């Protein structure tokens, strides 16, 4: 029997992660409502000034996506026990393939997370929707970048008791270009400019993060 290729292996691992998340419901049934609560709290803290909320709504949405999206990437169901990791190693799955599978599952979950929070943001903040066609590119690019960085942080903090707090500290500062680009796309559209340079920055961050995962996967694998 021919063993499945790396792409098939990564897809199967992503499917396994999604199945586990489907059973646990940690990302979409717990973290997403928590993000919704955060969106609701900002107006109570900064004041219910409708024009002000309209102008800051889009930025607040991306801050919530960034902060809570890391929790989606570092969810409990996205951890491998030493026995699971050993089994995958024995079956010949390359560490990069393992991390790619996890990143792919994280990307889909983050995209779903973003899509859940977007209508909530529109409803609460009523931000200008003139940049919505660009969101079709921004949403998946941010989801992919955050997912890859989250996967890397998850691998770095694997097995730690403080994984859920250390992981965000490692990811958030590195994810700053994602936040900047996502918010600046809307800003550029508002002032009648083409936001291609910000999309290019998003793509660059995604590619660099993916390369970092691919190159460091074997080094991170050895510990377990």
């Amino acid at each position, binding site marked *: 029997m021919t063993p499945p290729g790396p792409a098939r292996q990564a897809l199967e691992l992503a499917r396994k992660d999604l199945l586990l998340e489907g059973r646990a419901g940690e990302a979409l049934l717990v973290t997403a409502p928590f993000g919704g609560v955060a969106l609701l709290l900002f107006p109570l803290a900064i004041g219910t000034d409708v024009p002000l909320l309209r102008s800051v709504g889009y930025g607040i949405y991306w801050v919530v996506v960034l902060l809570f999206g890391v929790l989606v990437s570092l969810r409990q169901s996205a951890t491998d026990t030493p026995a699971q990791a050993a089994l995958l190693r024995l079956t010949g799955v390359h560490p990069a393939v393992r991390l790619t599978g996890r990143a792919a599952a994280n990307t889909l979950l983050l995209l779903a997370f973003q899509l859940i929070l977007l209508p909530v943001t529109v409803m609460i903040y009523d931000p200008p929707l003139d940049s919505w066609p660009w969101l079709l590119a921004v949403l998946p690019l941010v989801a992919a970048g955050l997912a890859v960085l989250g996967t890397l942080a998850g691998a*770095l*903090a694997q097995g730690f008791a403080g994984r859920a707090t250390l992981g965000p500290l490692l990811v*958030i*500062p590195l994810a700053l270009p994602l936040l900047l680009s996502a918010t600046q796309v809307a800003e550029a559209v508002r002032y009648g400019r083409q936001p291609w340079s910000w999309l290019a920055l998003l793509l660059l961050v995604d590619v660099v993060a993916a390369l970092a995962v691919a190159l460091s996967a074997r*080094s991170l694998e050895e510990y377990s």
Partner: protein
Amino acid sequence: MRPVPGRLTAVTVVAVAGALVAALTAPPDRLQGNLQRLMYVHVPAAWLAYLSFAITLGASAGWLWKRRASLDRLASASAEVGVFFTGLTIALGSIWGKPVWGVWWTWDPRLVTTAMMFFVYLGYLALRRATLDATVRARRSAVFGVLAFAQIPVVHMSVVWWRAVHQPPTVLKPAAPTIDEWMLAALLANVLAFTLVYVVLLRARIRLAVAEEAYDAAHDGAAGELAGQAITTPDYRKEFPNHV
């Protein structure tokens, strides 16, 4: 511990004294007056933050290649010193910013990216503290030490790429430096003195790490007092001697 300071420490003390004299005797800025003298500490501190993290990068990459414990110690010590100098850079910039810009902090790209760099390397140190096993700690922090360096070019180029309140590079730029000769000489003297301070701190931190490792090795496996050791399970036969 040596009672008399070594040659390097003595040279450093002399260099710092000379740099202090140079900083105090250099002409004041035409607009900022004596406030500008803070730059003789702020700029060298920022330069040392870059240098520290560059050495962390080199040592981390070296560890991934050669797996030598000394490289891990160098990477860790340099990151610690770098975090200190980054914090100093931010604090001094803030002290300078209040009278000159009118605010302690502003949303300038250079300031924000520097603060992010500070937090990235705090994350690096947190990662090291969270890992107990020496080899796992070295491996994970080496990977992160290489990744984290991606921030440094962004910090340095932020004033060129974005419109900023922070002034663009004065010395490290393609064209000739745009600074008075005396000021430049005082600045370079301070950069040299601070680099020596960095070397002294780095050496001291590495020695401390070696001593810590020796201590851990000496006490590894020794019967230390464990939490809850005073509590013992009740002796059933003693409590109930007649129980069959």
